[in-house]
């Protein structure tokens, strides 16, 4: 497998607080990579650095061998690197289908394509993906009236609609009803295998991430603590310390 995201020696601090210090990691194309760590260990900061929400202090971030660490958000998104938000962001005033149609991959469109109406196949694709995440029955409801978990699923479906090359998911299972988590894991794996989307996931739920990821990185206090296959991470005493020992 080849590398799709390559992070090299990235540091980021806010004022005096060091959020990321000399982080290096790689995400393999077509795989599922996990990023774990206790609260405040700098996971979301790292995500934000990758997708362009703030400048980084040092280091390099490459996406498909292109340096993206100085690009603004839209430009990175148009390369096919997408993220979902920890606090979901959907268009609350629009219904589910409209939310899906707005997420069509604009980067693959020519400018004049914008002046067409959505085609029959666009609607079909929206319906198919809504069914895939289990929101088909609710597709005409105002998205803002959906529950938090459903909004999260909608956001995931919107990301799939966009046909990204790689998708960064910030805590996909947080706030989701535990009985639905198994279904979500299944869908994430299917998205990875059937649609060929590389996943890079921040996750707190150990069971979830251990079941999915091929490789896991663990951050602690802004530094890379451990990396390896799920089994190695699970048994790594430093990781256990970081989770149990940290107050």
């Amino acid at each position: 497998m080849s590398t799709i995201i390559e992070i090299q020696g990235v540091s980021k601090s806010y004022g005096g607080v060091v959020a990321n210090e000399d982080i290096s990691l790689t995400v393999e194309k077509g795989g599922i990579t996990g990023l774990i760590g206790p609260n405040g260990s700098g996971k979301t900061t790292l995500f934000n650095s990758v997708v362009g929400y703030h400048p980084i202090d040092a280091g390099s971030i490459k996406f498909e061998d292109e340096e993206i660490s100085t690009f603004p958000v839209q430009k990175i998104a148009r390369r096919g690197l997408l993220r979902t938000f920890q606090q979901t962001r959907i268009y609350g005033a629009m219904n589910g289908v409209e939310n899906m149609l707005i997420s069509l991959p604009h980067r693959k469109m020519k400018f004049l394509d914008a002046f067409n109406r959505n085609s029959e196949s666009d609607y079909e694709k929206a319906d198919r993906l809504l069914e895939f995440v289990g929101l088909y029955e609710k597709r005409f409801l105002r998205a803002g009236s959906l529950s938090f978990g459903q909004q999260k699923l909608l956001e995931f479906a919107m990301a799939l609609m966009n046909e990204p090359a790689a998708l960064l998911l910030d805590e996909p299972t947080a706030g989701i009803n535990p009985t639905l988590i198994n279904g979500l894991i299944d869908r994430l794996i299917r998205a990875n295998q059937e649609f060929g989307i590389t996943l890079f996931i921040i996750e707190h739920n150990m069971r979830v991430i251990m079941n999915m990821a091929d490789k896991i990185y663990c951050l602690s206090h802004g530094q890379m603590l451990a990396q390896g296959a799920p089994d190695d991470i699970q048994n790594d005493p430093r990781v256990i310390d970081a989770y149990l020992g940290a107050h």
Partner: protein
Amino acid sequence: MKKNTVIFYGLILAFIIVAPFIFPDFRTQLAALWLMIIVAMTWDMTGGQMGYNSLGNIVFYGTGMYVAAVVTIALAYDVGAYTNAFGGGVYKFTDQQYFLGMLLGILGAGVFCSIIAVVIGFVTFGLRGPYFAIGTLGVAIAAGELVSNWEWVGGGQGIALPVYPGDLDTGKVLFYFLFAVTGVVLFIFLKWLYSTRFGAAINAIRDDEEKAEAMGIHTLRYKLTTWAMSAFFVGVVGGISAFQLIHFEPLETAYQTINLGIFMVVCVLLGGKGTLWGPIIGAILFHVFKEVTWNYFLGWQWVALGALIVVTVVYFQDGVMGYLAHRKPEWFGVRLDDKKAEVSQ
């Protein structure tokens, strides 16, 4: 289209065509109403549909006026000499020069304003929210000040165009229909535009621009295009106004920041932002209110207008359409429970 819709639009169109003949005394008034409707609809393109509240769209109106005037004059004479001889010189225009100037001037005004919008937009669309409003207001004020100091186009005295060569009444009908055709074209254009992906994309920018960026939508491109299209129509009606008013000066007529510049915003708010009909309803309400009450205020008109703005903004911000959407959501295709969702489609 459904039969009712056809009848509805047919009736409106018929009224538009016969209106200047059944109300011959109100031709200028009706033209002014069209102007209000058009600028309100164009303001809503950015303000209502895209969420970028400009206070400076008047810059396109003023620029449109000047472009139309300069093009018409330049076709026949030297502009500097013409404006220099303001009031004194004898400059005659043949019918051919007049109408050719009108055609090229009005279209040129639209095209030029589109270009201006793209150029200004590169800067102002980096600004969000209130900064955008203040920035565009600044652009409008600056444009007026600069033009009023620019002697080549007549400076603070303004510029005068030739009078319509035919008789006065035909002229009034002509100007009415110039505005009316522009308005109808704009309405059809917007109805189509808002039904395309483009419409959805600018709505997405309004609702959550950061999310739209994160989904890879070319936000700047959409914003510039929308503003350029909006500016085209404002420039065109500016050009028509220039011919209709014959003489205009920069600060009070062309770049009238606190008159038309703010009226268009009030119209849209009165009628309801982000809807196709809202600006039209708002413009009619506002125009009627303004014309009916104007004479009773005895010099207090402008105070009353300021008060109207405050009252509209404070108490009636969602406008007529917003009120209806709140009371009758089903009219607007909003579905609130699962059952209805199953019935349709």
